[in-house]
């Protein structure tokens, strides 16, 4: 059932050619192999890997997931094999398949980010997504993405050491997300992705304790979509560089909303847990929408709001 999707869906994002605007979001698709067993993920535009750090991380202890109406809170804590094991075990598959591979990089210190990016820059990968927005680390992570000044500093340092297209993933916890976005643009980012999860919490009223060991966790899913959409809209008004919209997209209609709000690409995250075929189904819906409305390029509808 190899569908031929329209050329009209192609997107040039920071000089990188995407077959279509659909990307599997970091942390919801591993390194691609599991979902590729469900459907051919080469039909999609791209895949952002599970967040990678310099050294292996075993992740957070205690409860890692909690449901809330139309949403989930997670506290994975960037469990990942570390950049070197990723190269040994996962990179081969990503190199072979025909979709834009985006390596998502997290960390606790600037030094760790720099060392990881240096290693990644030697690889045959298409793009770096700099995660300065993970709410589940005790140190680093999201703290880089709260203030424009720190976000600019890390972006500038990373820009100096890599020629790979650089996308910075922003946090909805930013004091002023448009300012952070502008700061990243000024510091040399080629694009932005937003938003990461919202810092949230749940309390076990019987135990009289927080559900999560770290007290706070990251909220995602349909519940956050209207707020994330608003943030994407605000940022797209402020910056020149292209934006990947992410946050609660679970239908093709949601994807169209993000594009109309200004996003050039969209990332599918939690929806992969609702339905492992979500990426493909959203792509089909978008394709039909383009056909039905005789849309010849994404730019015809992008940012019209």
């Amino acid at each position, binding site marked *: 059932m190899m569908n031929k999707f329209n050329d009209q869906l192609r997107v040039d994002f920071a000089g990188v050619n995407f077959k279509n605007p659909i990307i599997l979001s970091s942390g919801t698709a*591993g390194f691609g192999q599991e979902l590729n*067993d469900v459907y051919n993920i080469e039909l999609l535009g791209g895949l952002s890997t599970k967040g990678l750090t310099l050294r292996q991380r075993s992740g957070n202890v205690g409860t*890692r997931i909690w*449901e809330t109406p*139309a949403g989930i809170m997670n506290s994975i804590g960037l469990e990942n094999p570390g950049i070197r094991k990723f190269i040994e075990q996962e990179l081969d598959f990503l190199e072979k398949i025909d979709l834009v591979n985006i390596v998502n990089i997290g960390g606790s210190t600037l030094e760790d980010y720099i060392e990881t990016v240096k290693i990644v820059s030697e690889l045959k990968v298409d793009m770096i997504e700099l995660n300065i927005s993970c709410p589940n680390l005790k140190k680093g992570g999201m703290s880089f993405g709260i203030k424009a000044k720190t976000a600019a500093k890390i972006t500038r340092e990373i820009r100096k050491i890599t020629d790979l297209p650089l996308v910075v993933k922003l946090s909805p916890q930013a004091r002023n997300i448009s300012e952070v976005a502008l700061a990243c643009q000024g510091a040399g980012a080629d694009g932005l992705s937003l938003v990461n999860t919202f810092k949230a919490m749940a309390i076990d009223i019987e135990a009289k304790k927080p559900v999560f060991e770290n007290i706070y966790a990251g909220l995602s899913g349909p519940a956050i979509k209207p707020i994330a959409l608003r943030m994407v809209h605000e940022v797209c008004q402020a910056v020149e560089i292209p934006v990947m919209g992410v946050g609660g997209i679970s239908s093709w209609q949601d994807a169209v909303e993000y594009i109309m709000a200004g996003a050039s690409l969209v990332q599918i995250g939690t929806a992969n*847990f609702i*339905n*492992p075929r979500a990426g493909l189904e959203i792509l089909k819906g978008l394709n039909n929408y383009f056909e039905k409305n005789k849309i010849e390029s994404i730019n015809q509808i992008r940012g019209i709001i």
Partner: protein
Amino acid sequence: MAEIISNVQLSRGIYLMKVRGQFQGKMGQFYMIRAWDKDPVLSRPLSIYSLEENSISFLYQVKGKGTTIFSKLNPKEEIKLVGPYGNGFPLVKGRVALLGGGMGAAPLYLAGQTLKQQKGLEKLDIYLGFQKRAFLKNEFNKIADRLVIDIGGLITERIEVDQYDYILTCGPDAMMQALIRKTEGSKAKVYLSIEKRMACGMGTCLVCTCKSRKGNIKVCKDGPVFRGSDIYDE
């Protein structure tokens, strides 16, 4: 989508749901199941209770929002099944015991049915422990050489582990740990099926990570069945 054939309450809050269709699966594997659109967000992992040519059954207990929805479904209504996922129990031979605590009985019926057909099976004894009331006694009785039921006590105290080459188990953590301690120094090998909250069921989300002697393991993809000695200290 698949059609529900029956959805019967066996005991308070415990249901057996039978679904029409030709499904794949091995003993100890599970399906991700939902009967709703986007809320709750996650599907519920349920292990296969039994598998026939044109149907599949799941045993579940009403615990939260998802299982409450399941419990209200009527025959002819539809649910969505994705799977099967997980490794499943190994095809063991010789003298085998199945030991379940409460809802831990869920994957053991298919295990019993499957092992019964194995050449080289010398005996199949089934031990089931319940807090208040037993369920599915007759079904398990049909496949067991010997069925031991315990209500209100500790089922692990009713088994002589040295009588067995293999013990397949599923149930509360404390029960499985007690079994592992009891098999220390014995020849009986234990395989246990672990339950954890899951999001994807296929190994991408890392929600069900569990610490083991071999480092972090994914209950959904590396398991849910593990050698007892890999999970708990012997």
